[in-house]
């Protein structure tokens, strides 16, 4: 590998790192927004999930 090739590769790696960081940051932002939503959903979810789900039985449908 020549110096120039090495430099190009290093530069490409750095760009990739920067892009990767951007992706990670955006992923974290998305996750944070979803976490806000989940916090809100937690306040309206029926209590005692296991019991509630168990009691939901529907017979006689088309």
């Amino acid at each position, binding site marked *: 590998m020549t110096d120039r090739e090495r430099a190009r590769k290093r530069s490409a790696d750095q760009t990739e790192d920067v892009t990767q960081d951007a992706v990670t940051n955006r992923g974290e932002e*998305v*996750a944070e927004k*979803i*976490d806000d*939503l*989940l916090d*809100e*959903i937690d306040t*309206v*979810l*029926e209590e005692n*999930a*296991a019991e*509630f*789900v*168990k*009691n*939901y*039985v*529907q*017979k*006689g*449908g*088309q």
Partner: protein
Amino acid sequence: MAIEPIIGTEVEYGITVTNNESFNPVTASALVVNAYGGGRGRIRWSYDDETPGRDARGFNVGMQPIDENDSGLVNAVLLNGARLYVDHAHPEYSTPECSDPLEATLHDKAGELVMHQAAEAANTLLPEGQRLLLYKNNSDGKGNSYGAHENYLVSRSVPFGALAQHLTAFFVTRQILTGSGKVGSEHGRPDVGFQISQRADFFEEEIGLETTLKRPIINTRDEPHSDAQKYRRLHVIIGDATQSEIQTFVKVGAASLVLMALEDQVLGDPILLADPVGAITAISHDTTLQQPVKLADGTEATALELQRHYFDIAEEYVASHDLAPAYKQVIGEWRSLLTDIAEGYEAVADRLDWAAKMTMVEGYRRRDSLAWDDPKLHLVDLQFHDIDPDKGLYHRLVQAGRMRRLFSDAEVVEATQHAPESTRAYFRGECLRRYGSSVVAANWDSLVFDTGASTLVRLPMMEPRKGTRDLVDDLFAASPDAATLIHNIGGSND
């Protein structure tokens, strides 16, 4: 040129009563229907013309005649032309006949509001501590399913065999756009964490008359509720109940366009799947949309590729025909969904119920490290479909600005009170509004009046494109009461 189909949906809602483990779903459903106060006629449903056992393939099956004295048969006909009733053990809402996909979507949404208002009224009648809840979904997660059916009135000239041959692959692959999502699998299907469709696990046959057992992809019920020489009603039982307005719009709009292209013989050769029933589960269980299914000619294609095939034909069809404006809008939304869904489910989470639900479920799995069998994930799945705007998770997403809509709340309220103006539903709804005390029975294709004369008068409405506002408003204006209406129409009224 093909006629634009008359469209309607019928949705069975899941029902439960909290703090009452022995609640009877038939009684509870009757309570819901009878409690609904807004915009209804207190009249009988007439079963005179109902023939659920008639098969489109040309024979009759000995199905039970409907017993009008059955206490479970509770019915209301609403001022918007819809039918609210108890079917089996569920409250059900059938929209009025609609003339385009946008109107059908609006009336499907109006059904949710009617059901919610009915449940609120029913709740005031329950003992302290009990609460009646309704769900717009299709499965209890324990092997029991209930339907969300679509109806398309097409020309009788389309041979039923051609419908079945062309539509099977369309219906099997459209799940990626029509599913409302489910945690886990049922009915003996392979284990899966999350799947695209509520209903997919329950289909066992390619074609048949059944709707409750061995459900078929193509349902052969031949009951047009109109002139049977002229029309057939395609009764579609393979589809999920959807709350996203754009999703319902594309669901009924795409099917209508494919039907028109089929009638005009521009669908090309039918795409035949090697194993249609197996493909339903395979497609529903693959949220990556990457797994191809086998075609009968030995090649393979993904559901997305096959849906693009139907889209291309529909786009060309809309460009070369003078259709209702809603169809151009269908093409726009359908195209965006097909483009965006290729990027993954997150890209369509603002328009498709399954993707919206999966976003929440995956969020919980990441944040709280929940396993797929955690009851909380099943609760999120179920409560996504609760139609109460305060508790339903779909509604919470709308309120958070995370779901795109087509209608304002006011438009949906309006549709609970007023029928579509360009079908016979207008005549039905307005007769109830204007002459309600004289209407003693109704069904899709007739009204029965008691004007105080010695005999009842039955008005047949065999043509769904008549009885429209344009055609009957002058008649209504000239008819202050039902007797005059009958006289003006020329019916006997001695």
